[in-house]
């Protein structure tokens, strides 16, 4: 398995990243070294094995459906680069 320039651009777009032109060949090469490394996984016989997504055999806990009255709107909006009193501000998306 290896990755080419076109695939790199497609995946970078999925991941919302711009890869600068001068870094494309370096990153492609670096990714292909990793691809070679992870390819080893195909040596394992896993036909009867259940995937393990998590180390603990736990289930999702639920909490009591109680009203909590804490609003952190002001502190959270203050972390944004651009916000008014009630909204995050972004470039216009609808003409």
């Amino acid at each position: 398995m290896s990755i080419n320039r076109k695939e790199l651009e497609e995946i970078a777009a999925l991941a919302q990243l711009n890869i600068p032109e001068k870094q494309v060949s370096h990153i492609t090469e670096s990714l292909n070294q990793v691809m070679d490394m992870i390819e080893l996984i195909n040596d394992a016989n896993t036909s009867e094995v259940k995937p393990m997504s998590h180390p603990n055999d736990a289930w999702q806990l639920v909490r009591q459906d109680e009203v909590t009255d804490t609003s952190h709107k002001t502190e959270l909006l203050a972390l944004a680069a651009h916000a008014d009193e009630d909204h995050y501000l972004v470039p216009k998306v609808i003409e």
Partner: protein
Amino acid sequence: MINLSIRTMAEMLKNQEISVQELCAVYSDRTKAFNHSTHAMITINPELNAAEILQAQSLIGQDEQLLAGIPLVHKDLFCTQGVKTTCGSKMLADFIPPYNATVVQKLSDKGMVSIGKANMDEFAMGSSNEHSAFGAVSNPWDLSRVPGGSSGGSAAAVAARMVPVATGTDTGGSIRQPAAFCGITGIKPSYGRVSRYGMVAFASSLDQGGVMAPSADDCGLVLSAMTGHDPLDSTSAQQPRLNWEKPSSPEHKGLKVGVVNAWIDELQDEGIKQKTLDAIAHLKANGAEVVDIKLPHAELAISAYYILAPAECSSNLSRFDGVRFGHQTKAVDDLESLYRQSRSEGFGEEVQKRIIIGAWALSSGYYDAYYLKAQKVRRLISEDFKQAFAEVDVIACPVSPEVAFKQGEKSDGVSMYQADKFTIPASLAGLPCLSMPIGFTQGLPVGLQLIGNYFDEQSILQLADQYQQQTNYHLQLPEAFA
């Protein structure tokens, strides 16, 4: 003063031989003095917080866990209310959290005094601490070498005794490998033992907070205070709090220690191999029954890990959009460009590389062949450990195939990834594990890894403590910092 255990410092505070203010000032001054050479810290609190000192002083003598008044630093991915939390990234360079991580809050409630935030590989991705947006950390044993990573700042700060204890996190070895490289003790508890609330996420099914300190006893005391179920973290285990009990005797009578001889045989560094064999012989001489164990699927661990961890990272780091918090680019006029440009400017190269690997592994056409396959391999590795723990109480094995390497020596990522081969298997299984110092080769520290069964941190801490009752490798200080 600078090489005392937590128990001794607690005794001195209780007997009024020293005040909290004086103790914290000793370490705060050392942190300021030695940060120029180590770069172990990203943020140093300019002044000790008077309210924190007062609260700690009021707890002296009442605190059974002996932590009141003990200074510490937090790895810079634990959210600290009102104190910058960068995660080693330009993305969060100006991020000031409005809340504390559960770990930070629990230790603060016990009266521990934070004197700053430790450097780290960006978003905890790296094994050398060279991937920090705020500069590489130097190893106090040789400033031209790396301290390991990703908790390299925490490890270097403890090794140079800039602080007596630091928090760290471990996803694939990020506490154990830097602890080994810097000659200190570091424990990653069982997955779920410590709340991840307020810990900036890298790979959520693997990340776990832990402790780095000179001795296993120090680690046990602090770890106990960090544990306990947290309703704010749905993956936090429903387990009672760890209650570390220091053993009274150095004898390991009746303890069965499984040794992964295949891993020791493959060590190329004769110095590390000899120290590992010596340490195991020491355990045997003190009454442990040593048996050979096999972990046949562990050789696939790196491949599985470098699919699963990047996949989880690509998902977790999608929250950084430049809008709600974190770095936002300037001079773009559409939302799509804002997202892409903010992320491309904010994340460093290693982080971007892992996001891309993860996005690729999760993308259509590769999900079954790679992501699902890696999850199946993870189960095989976990089953190997379950079989081993049916026979033994603790597993002993190397931490790293190498000692601290020179900065800039590993230019390709893959050779650095492959050096995590001994730490990743236990991470995938979610088991508790630690690294303890077992000597020096070429003047550099060597560590031994102890892995315990699920939620049995007591056994590995106990074995390490018993070893440390008879050795003094954990008390050695680098000459320039003595």
